[in-house]
């Protein structure tokens, strides 16, 4: 074992650097959260103090719950995210299976065609997307968002899932064929359960950008009853700029669901990111 790779000074320096950066990463979130529970006076007097019996106040949350329909926004975000993930995974897995399992004319070209969208952001086509959604009457519906996010997520999903599907054993599928299973049964019963880890990776990759997107909700679904949480908090905060209690509480309410999701899925996400699936 080499000295240079195990000396205590180096270890302290490394921990010092990491702790410093962790503080930088945490600080804004921390400040927002603690101040959302304080009275207006204390927010300004002692912005860095933790809320105590004297300064504790929920007035901001009361304003938020009275003025903004955050439960509706949350529900909309939830429907859009889950709906989009469902279609990305289902359609993506089906297409990935077709590309990785069967040899047919145009297989290569179809793969390349679907991969185009990995690098080209869908936002470029916004003008025409809006026009299309207006013509089909989908504007201001959650379906508009689900369709856009599905299209946006499919290229990478097909790419990652077909890599994984190539690894599914050929014998297993052939055994199924000999038993007289249809191609559909083989896909849904035999192959899908085996690529579940890859599907989870695709899901967590797509979840965060969809949940956090501001652009498409702003353009395709700005109406009150279909606002997502991201757009809802943006609009709410814009209206209540001077009510610091309300703004801080709205921010905290927008942070919490994402933090909870992250705590649940962080292992999956980090494993996905570090397994090189994005290459």
């Amino acid at each position, binding site marked *: 074992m080499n000295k240079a790779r195990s000396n205590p000074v180096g270890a302290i320096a490394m921990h010092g650097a990491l702790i410093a950066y962790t503080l930088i990463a945490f600080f804004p979130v921390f400040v927002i959260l603690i101040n959302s529970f304080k009275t207006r006076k204390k927010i300004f007097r002692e912005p860095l103090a933790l809320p105590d019996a004297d300064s504790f106040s929920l007035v901001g949350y009361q304003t938020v719950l009275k003025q903004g329909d955050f439960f509706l926004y949350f529900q909309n975000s939830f429907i859009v995210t889950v709906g989009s993930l469902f279609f990305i995974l289902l359609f993506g897995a089906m297409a990935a299976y077709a590309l990785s399992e069967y040899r047919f004319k145009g297989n290569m070209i179809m793969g390349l065609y679907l991969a185009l969208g990995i690098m080209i952001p869908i936002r470029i086509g916004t003008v*025409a997307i809006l026009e299309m959604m207006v013509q089909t009457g989908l504007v201001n519906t959650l379906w508009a968002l689900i369709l856009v996010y599905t299209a946006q997520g499919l290229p990478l999903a097909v790419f990652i899932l077909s890599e994984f599907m190539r690894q599914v054993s050929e014998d297993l599928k052939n055994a199924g064929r000999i038993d007289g299973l249809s191609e559909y049964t083989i896909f849904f019963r035999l192959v899908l359960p085996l690529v579940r880890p890859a599907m989870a990776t695709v899901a967590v990759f797509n979840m965060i950008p969809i949940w956090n997107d501001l652009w498409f909700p702003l353009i395709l679904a700005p109406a009150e009853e279909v606002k997502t949480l991201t757009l809802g908090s943006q609009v709410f905060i814009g209206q209540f700029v001077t009510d610091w209690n309300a703004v801080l509480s709205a921010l905290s309410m927008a942070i919490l669901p994402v933090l909870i999701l992250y705590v649940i899925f962080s292992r999956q996400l980090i494993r996905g990111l570090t397994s090189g699936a994005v290459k």
Partner: protein
Amino acid sequence: MDRPRFRWHIVVFLAPAVLVYTAVMIFPLFNTLRLALYSKIDQERVFVGLENFQRLFLDPIWSEQFWNALGNNFWFFVVHMLVQNPIGVALAAVLSHPRLRFAALYRSAIFIPTILSFVIVGFAWKLILSPIWGIAPSMLDAVGLKALFAPWLGKEEYALTTLALISVWQYVGIPMMLIYAALLTIPEEVLEAGEIDGVTGFSAFWKIKLPLILPSIGIISILTFVGNFNAFDLIYSVQGALAGPDFSTDILGTFMYRTFFGFQLQLGDPHMGSAIASAMFAIILVGVCIYLFGIQTRMRRYQL
């Protein structure tokens, strides 16, 4: 093997993905490029060829805004390349140290800002940097640097850099994770061989690890480029559609939004909006091509 009959199941498997992708992504993309060649004259859509682009690049009313947004966008990208990616690589290098304790904890904690939306991040920093609240000035005061404080988001000369740094703060997790993954794939034997030759610590990083992770740095650069050139959310949340002060933080995304939807007295113009989108498309395409054909193919890859 003979061909029994047409294999319908392939069509069934491919159809949903191809249909949605084509209808909602590829078709609108080309339709936007097409719409850029039209203009609305007396409530009617008229083909005008490249006139919109001529206005965008040469007519002072448009070109001034366009070049301003493009220049700002480049600066936004440069800040990311110079700050975000080196910090990401440095964090990854420390995290990948074999005997570091709590590595997983640090990794998860540093990644937290990346999962928050730009709306949250933008407003949180806006409040912290606000002279009214005074967190930033009082913290600078604590270390005796109060004189350095300025309302950074409100000054033309600092606002864009401040926003770029906020975005860096948020996204540093992505390069960190990708580089971390690349560093983990370097086999122990290679590093040990270096140690035997006396290459350790920093020089091991520069001479052995860095060349091996160059392909990942290339991927990060192109992801940053594409991400920056269609950025919008952060600037819109913090500075609004006008990208103030005095358009000093205007980038292509906000410029396109403003043109497309209109603001205050200016009416929205989908055709000029499409022209800007087409310009963005061209810039991203050029960037991706430079990466694919100029950088990626020339980069030396080592078989590990």
